[in-house]
Structure formats: structure tokens, C-alpha cells
């Protein structure tokens, strides 16, 4: 060690490198990355639907072909994966929703759980409505 002068020593702060596997090592972060990944599936589904819409504009034959295409076994498997991803996305999305919409009754904050449940109820009601309309129409 050098002599004790008024100048002190030179600092040398050390930056620890971030490991590329940061999201693999903690379950919390892995879950987060999977959640983010669901966007790929949701995006994919939008493309499939867009394609279907386009085929619809091309006439009944084209649309019919598209329908047959998405009914194939690999497509069904893909759609099941997309459904799983969408559900996971919905669960995580609904869990975060109350954070952005703080509700208050008098001087009490409405806890997050009832708001999450409210989202599921609303989702269920809307899904039922869509299903009924689909059957009826």
C-alpha cells in the first residue's frame, strides 16, 4: 500500500458481467420469458386468421382450401399450442391488470384478487356470448 496522502486512491469500480442464461437460472424469470414468448404464438395466430380472411376474399373455393388446411393434424396440434399459449398469456395478463387500474371504495383499496376474478368473469361471459352468436348465426 502506498503512503497515506491527502489524495486518496484511484477508484476502480468493477462491473460484473450479465450471464446470458440469466432467465434460465431463476424460475420467476423463465416464467416471464415464456409469457413473452406467447406473443409469438398470438402473432402467428393473427397471421393465420389474416390469411383466412384473404382467402375469403378470393372466393369459396380458396376459403374452403384454407379451412381444409387448418383442419389438418399438424395444424390442429399447432392450434392447441396456440390455445395453450393464449391461455397462459390471458392468465398472466389478468394477473397484472389490477396494477394498472387501482380501484378504491371509500378509503380502502380494492385488493387485486377480486379484480382478477372480475376479469375472468367478464372473459367467461364474453366467450359465452360469442359462442351463442356463433351457434345462432
Amino acid at each position, binding site marked *: *500500500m502506498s503512503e497515506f496522502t491527502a489524495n486518496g*486512491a*484511484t*477508484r*476502480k*469500480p*468493477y*462491473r*460484473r458481467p*450479465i450471464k446470458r442464461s*440469466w*432467465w434460465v437460472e*431463476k424460475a*420467476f*424469470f423463465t416464467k*416471464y420469458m415464456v409469457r*413473452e414468448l406467447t406473443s409469438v404464438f398470438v402473432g402467428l395466430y393473427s397471421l393465420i386468421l389474416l390469411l383466412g380472411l384473404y382467402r375469403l376474399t378470393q372466393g369459396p373455393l380458396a376459403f374452403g382450401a384454407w379451412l381444409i388446411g387448418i383442419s389438418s393434424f399438424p395444424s390442429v396440434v399447432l392450434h392447441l399450442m396456440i390455445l395453450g399459449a393464449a391461455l397462459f398469456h390471458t392468465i398472466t395478463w389478468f394477473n*397484472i391488470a*389490477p*396494477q*394498472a387500474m*387501482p380501484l*378504491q371504495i*371509500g*378509503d*380502502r*383499496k380494492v385488493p387485486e384478487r377480486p379484480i382478477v376474478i372480475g376479469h375472468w368473469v367478464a372473459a367467461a361471459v364474453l366467450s359465452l356470448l360469442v359462442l351463442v352468436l356463433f351457434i345462432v348465426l
Partner: protein
Amino acid sequence: MSEQQSDQQTIQIEILRYRPETDHEPVWQSYTVPFDPATSVLEGLTYIKDHLDGSVSFRWSCRMAVCGSCGMQINGEPKLACQTFLREFHPGKVRIEALANFAIERDLVVVMDDFLEKLTAIKPYVIRDQDKPLEEGEYLQTPAEQVPYMQYSQCINCMLCYSACPQYALNQEFTGPAALALAHRYNMDSRDQGVDQRMEILNMEEGVWGCTAVGACSEVCPKGVHPAAAIQQSKILGTLDYTKMNALRKFILPKGAR
């Protein structure tokens, strides 16, 4: 630390040491420390410094989780050393290193300049067009009006949230959870009129939009501040501002002080 009993339990504490004048990089060092059910990790560290190795440097003060000094990575998780107990880890080892995502100044001491700059930049004080004279007394604020901001005022500036946040890890420009929560605390205080002045820094890429709702910050916060919620709420305010739909802000923002 009281005198040891005859069958004193001990635990291994490993500390990531770093002395910039002599070390090229940090190195682990191990110590054997006596403990009982009430011994905190902080007490373990002060035992080491008093009796085993005086050269271990760490910040601490209040010992009751309110000053925010003693944040560190304990077995990989950002925690307050005064509120973490050695009994939780026994018979395993306790590995302690400086708070993640910050540069190490020395041993368990991190460089806090960036954090302080961000805390300062968000204008963390009441902004009003006009302040009424003190003789007229306090601004009235009902318990109901305190609810929207009170939670976000509990931050002890311990920086555990910055350690947990992967966005901050990957990008040091990100304003970060505590600073953004503090901005929101003032935005939602009925006595404040400064939301427009804070909007620029909030609405930046490095502001609230740097957050992707990972939520790790709220998980590790020792005071239940829930910075993630503050940030998501700020995103709505920010969106309304960006789309010039500020008239809708009245549903979210508190009334100005009466």
C-alpha cells in the same frame, strides 16, 4: 454478539471480496461465524468485521429495515441483511455479494451515483403553481385521498428492486422501479400539480416504457411499495398524454388540493 454457549452453532459465510487497489477481480472468501436463532446476516457480518477480518466493507445503520443501507445479494437473492436471518440457511452456506446490477466499489459496497441521479431527475417534491401561506394551515387531504399514493411513499431507497430488474441489468439507462414509483407517488398526491413536469422523463423509452412488467421489483421489495403497479399506472397516464387525451386524466389523477 453475546458470549458463546458451550454448544455454539456455527455457519459458513462466504463473501465476494473486492479491494480495487490490490484485486484485479472479485474473489470469494469464507468465514465461520457463531449464531443463534435471532442472529441476522448483518450481525454475522459485524461479527466478521469485529473479530475475524476488519477489512470487510459494507454499508449498514438502522438494523430495522428502514434506512435502506444494507441491501446485498444473499444466496443469489437481493435482500436486506438486517432482516435476513442466518438460521434460514443453516446447515447450508451463506453466500453474500454486492447488490446485483451495480458496479462494485469495494466488497459489498456498490456505486450508487446512477440511482441518486435518477431519484433526483424525476422531481421528487411537491410542485404547485402557488403555495398558500403557512398561517392558513395544512392542505386538506382525506384518508381516501391518501390511498392512491401512500403505498408508493414507503420506499426506503434500498435498491433491491434495481437488483431484481432484468431491464436495468440489460440497460443501465432505464430509470428504474424506485425512481418511477417515487414520481408516481407525487403525481398521485392531491397536493401536487406537477404531473406535466414529470411527464417527459416518465414517457421516455428509458422511462416507464423501458418496463416490460416483469414484476421482479415488487417481488423483492421489503416494504410492499409495489413499484410495478406504479409504473403500469404511469403508462396509462403517459399514453393519455402522448395521444393528447389529457381530458381523460381526470379519472385517474387526484383533484388538486383544496
